[in-house]
């Protein structure tokens, strides 16, 4: 069975619940006492699909303005971007659009996009409706999910499964142009802890061998 390994970056405005979503997924619990992320936090997880196994290395970035300039460090080598916004804050949805523009400008390789509307439990305060969000998701070639880290009904799980499935599709489509996406035909790499991921710098030099997909198919907006 094929095993693939990919990098995920979580982006979005401050306070939308990026860390909550990933924590919910990893620990299956909701932790109200979490403090704002400083810089970025690193998680790994394994997902079993019917087709094979996917190992995700996830960078959860800080949403505050002062960390914005550090984001390229994390998205440059990512295969998947989880774009998280707050369903009760329309401004955080608008901010997603500027993230997408930035990704289009700065990343020229294929990237799976997953749009996540968080805080779906706050129904009465909702300001972004599902149709608007899912239309936008389609327009950027992303899948759309709604989640609630407080009372999860499977939405959180579906986000990461979608990310894993997207990665899998990517690996099927583009065999000879693999960038930082790693494919192994056995499960050895998952079990073998000595199989170390390369550092971001060593992957930089591979960037120009990368492939175009998703984002690249669309005309560049500017620059």
């Amino acid at each position, binding site marked *: 069975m094929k095993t693939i390994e990919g990098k995920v970056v979580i982006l979005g405005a401050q306070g939308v619940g990026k860390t909550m979503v990933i924590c919910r997924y990893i620990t299956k619990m909701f932790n109200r006492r979490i403090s704002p992320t400083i810089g*970025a936090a690193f998680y790994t997880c394994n997902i079993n699909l019917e087709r094979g196994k996917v190992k995700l290395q996830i960078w959860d970035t800080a949403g505050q303005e002062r960390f914005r300039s550090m984001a390229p460090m994390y998205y440059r080598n990512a295969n998947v971007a989880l774009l998280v916004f707050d369903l009760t804050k329309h401004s955080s949805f608008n901010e997603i659009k500027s993230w997408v523009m930035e990704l289009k400008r700065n990343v020229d390789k294929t990237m799976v996009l997953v749009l996540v509307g968080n805080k779906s439990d706050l129904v009465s305060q909702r300001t972004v409706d599902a149709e608007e969000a899912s239309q936008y998701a389609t327009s950027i070639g992303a899948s759309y999910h709604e989640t609630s880290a407080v009372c999860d009904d499977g939405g959180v799980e579906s986000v990461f499964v979608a990310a894993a499935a997207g990665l899998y599709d990517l690996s099927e489509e583009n065999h000879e142009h693999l960038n930082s996406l790693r494919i192994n035909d056995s499960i050895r790499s998952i079990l073998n802890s000595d199989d170390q991921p390369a550092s971001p710098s060593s992957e930089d030099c591979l960037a120009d061998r990368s492939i175009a997909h998703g984002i690249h198919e669309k005309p560049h907006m500017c620059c």
Partner: protein
Amino acid sequence: MANPEAPGVDDVIAEPGIEPGASAETMLVTTDSFEEYEQEMSNSIDDRQMKESTTSTISELQEDIREAPPTPTAVSPTEPKPEPPDDLELEDNTQQLSLNSLEIDPLRNTTWLAQRKHIFILSQAGKPIYSRHSSEDKLVTLMGVMQALVSFVQAGNDMIRSVHAGDTNFVFVVKGPLILVTVSKTLESVPQLVLQLTYVYNQIVSVLTQSQLTRVYEQRRNFDLRRLLTGSERLIDHLLNFMDKEPAFFLGAIKCLPLLPSMRDAISQTIVQTCGKIKNLVFAILLANNQLVTLVRMKKYFIHPADLHLIQNLVASSESFKTVESWTPICLPKFDSNGFMHGHVSYLAEDCQACLLLLTVDKDVFYSLSDAKQKIVEKLRRTNCLEAINESMNKASITTAEIGLPEMRHVLYKCKSTAQFWSPGFQPPYTTDEEIERLLGLYQCLHHRLHAPNRPLKLIFQQLDKETMLAWVTSGFELYLTFEPLVTKPDAINSVSKLLKWIKKEEERLFILNSPTF
């Protein structure tokens, strides 16, 4: 009261000159307690700003060690959004003056007014940035008054330092583009309050860097700094509470986790061996219960206790570090106020809550540091070091009663040559927060009198209502002691002598006497 003559007091140490905990090696920059204050007072505004912006240790390091081009510590290029003019906010504020609640107008709220220590931060343009006990945007008028006071005195080519009214001290520090003000009813002296405000300023620099702070105000005098500080207010809140409870700040020293020297060496060596090959790693710091377990440094580079205090504050106030590996930008103002270091921050293991920080100038080494951390933990587990750390963390600190000094209640001992201090556990009557803070207030008074710029003292013996205090400074150490109120002078001196012998005997456990390097 004060007794500058100390007959026979030098006899109490068995071997004069070799004070407990002293070491020729140190990883900390040793400082005078009032270094900050003297710097504040002696320099003119221009001098100081020159001084702050000239050196860059990080770029020096980057040039030294690596072939790759230095990383630009780029700042978000986004333009600041236009702010509503101040007048509007002022109007709002005056409209609300009639209502009597903290949310609406703190100035009419008696609890707010009765707070023992207020801290305010505003920009030179008078824009509110932070207030300790209430939301800062309700204080536009008050901060306007502060700004007016500062700029009025500045217009006469002078600087406002402090205002004293009854038992209240108003202390001003103007640093870079910021004005920091404290209104304090505590017994702390002006230099001590200046020191605290400087710490608060350094905390902001640690989050933003000096260069970014200067730049945003150069671009826009009216900039609202709160936008860049969102999420960091808790660091300032925590720092202020920390300074009220921790003698480390006014002592300018670090407390170590007591450990057998063989264990501590094993831990240091594990870190040296595992990380030795990783280029550009500057400091590896292991903290447990906010005490230093070990610090490994790159040759040539030292860490200033003030920087280490900010790191301790960051770790203690960030719940999010506990569950996950973080890659965190940290600026250490004393090390290099203009650049970020990158810190791999993680707790050793779920069953060992000690926090390891690996600080580097290279932003691309996260994965090597992450691997190194795993290996360090595995080795420490095999060699029972995790267990030793846990044991020391969970053990209550020894008290002076347990040392066999019944008339002595508490003590602070600072070894000057290593910038480390030791204190025993609190025992009755110092068991409540109020009593502990009161005791620290007494120590601060003694500290101030020992270091008073105009008339420094060497020895103070002071009989108070509830306790007798003794403070003693020599070339090698500072000692602050609390005794039962009725203790006699000979008994007190006798037990000081016993205490110093005990510390000398235990020094290898209580202090870090070597300074491992990569």
